[in-house]
């Protein structure tokens, strides 16, 4: 299977986890990665700046109507939902919070799965709520691959546990193994 995109959701403890997951990815890694990290509405762009310095891949905030490109890692902007259009571009929305969150992981996962169907990988990492569980189930239902961070390793385990409870996920892995797995995909 040649995957066309990877979506990742993380919440409490996410920054450290994302650092561990993204920094081993090689410069040649082709598949675009799109991330919702729960974050305070007022925060600036420190996450993307920080990770962009640490990673070989280009890390940036997803802009309104930007085309999704290979070799990029995109982050949802604080206080906006991030949606994937079926022509592989982004759009933003200020609609109400979903699962108490804006950006919401479910919103990203659901729209991305319409765009990419079975060619999508969904990953849920550490966090304290249940955002992402429904989205991951939908990705699975549409033939995509689903991965959850091993709850035993996660800084906060409820988001991984809720995702595992909601649907039969394909893999439960430690961050290091997720990174290895991704690197093997290309």
């Amino acid at each position, binding site marked *: 299977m040649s995957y066309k995109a990877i979506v990742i959701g993380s919440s409490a403890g996410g920054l450290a986890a994302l650092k561990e997951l993204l920094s081993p990815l090689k410069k040649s890694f082709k598949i675009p990665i799109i991330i919702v990290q729960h974050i305070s509405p007022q925060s600036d762009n420190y996450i993307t700046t920080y990770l962009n310095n640490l990673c070989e891949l280009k890390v940036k905030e997803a802009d309104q109507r930007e085309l999704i490109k290979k070799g990029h890692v995109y982050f949802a902007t604080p206080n906006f939902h991030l949606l994937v259009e079926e022509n592989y571009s982004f*759009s933003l929305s200020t609609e109400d919070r979903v699962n108490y969150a804006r950006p919401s992981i479910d919103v990203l996962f*659901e729209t991305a799965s319409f765009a990419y169907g079975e060619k999508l990988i969904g990953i849920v990492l550490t966090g304290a709520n249940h955002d992402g569980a429904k989205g991951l189930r939908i990705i699975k239902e549409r033939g995509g691959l689903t991965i959850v961070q091993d709850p035993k390793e996660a800084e906060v385990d409820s988001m991984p546990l809720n995702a595992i409870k909601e649907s039969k996920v394909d893999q439960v892995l430690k961050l290091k193994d997720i990174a290895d797995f991704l690197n093997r995909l290309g």
Partner: protein
Amino acid sequence: MSKTFEEDNKTLNIEIELLLEAIFKKYGYDFRDYGKAHIKRRVLHRLASSKLESISHLQHAILYDEEYFKLILKDFSINVTEMFRDPSFYKKLREEVIPLLKTYPFIKIWHAGCSTGEEVYSMAILLKEEGLLDRTQIYATDFNQNVLKTAKEGIYPIDKVKEYTHNYQKSGGIHSFSDYYTAKFESVILDNELKSNIVFADHNLVSDKVFAEVHLVICRNVLIYFNKSLQDKVLDLLEKSLIPGGYLALGSKESIRFSKSNKEFDTVDDKEKIYKKKLSIKKA
């Protein structure tokens, strides 16, 4: 399995296209150039909370029952707003735009897509503090009558006040936010003085014409719901509503940079998305 998903998704998209066509033909509201992912989310949301079987059934319901149409209209118009949303924007407005507006004897401002009015009253407060409220006419428009009704009342839930006070202070407010409202039970009622120069009106940016000639247009967090061609069309309308040298303010994630109207404007502040219409425009 995936084949069926792709097939089903294609059919779903056809149903949504037909639904938008039906709404346009029957009610005149044109959502055909709104962002597709957004519209799809809202339609599926409405479908899930109805007892209807498919979007085609929803279409039937909307065509024969205006109440259903009103529901979907509400679904499509995202009304989330707040007072002094993005305080740094209001600060910039105060510092960079207000001093120039002061040079006009009489000022007109248009809030396009004003939702429930919080943005409009924030502007009224700013104008009052700058001594401009008495000589300003504010037009505030939206295509959703429900939100306009709330906007006219200017009554908001009291539990928002803490956040609004914080925003107000960060925006460079020079008084106390509590000077502008009276608390009553679970609500705050904004002062009548703020309302005196505001006209709230129904206006659809997609299908209606230029609204007035104004010195400042504020259209924030509306264009993000439109596709590129509709955004261009609406920006053209906004541009035509401005006097030469007038100002345009967009939402933090919106920009004129890649639009056709770009050449008609100079950038006042890139981050806060404030633009100034050029004084003389050479026609191509």
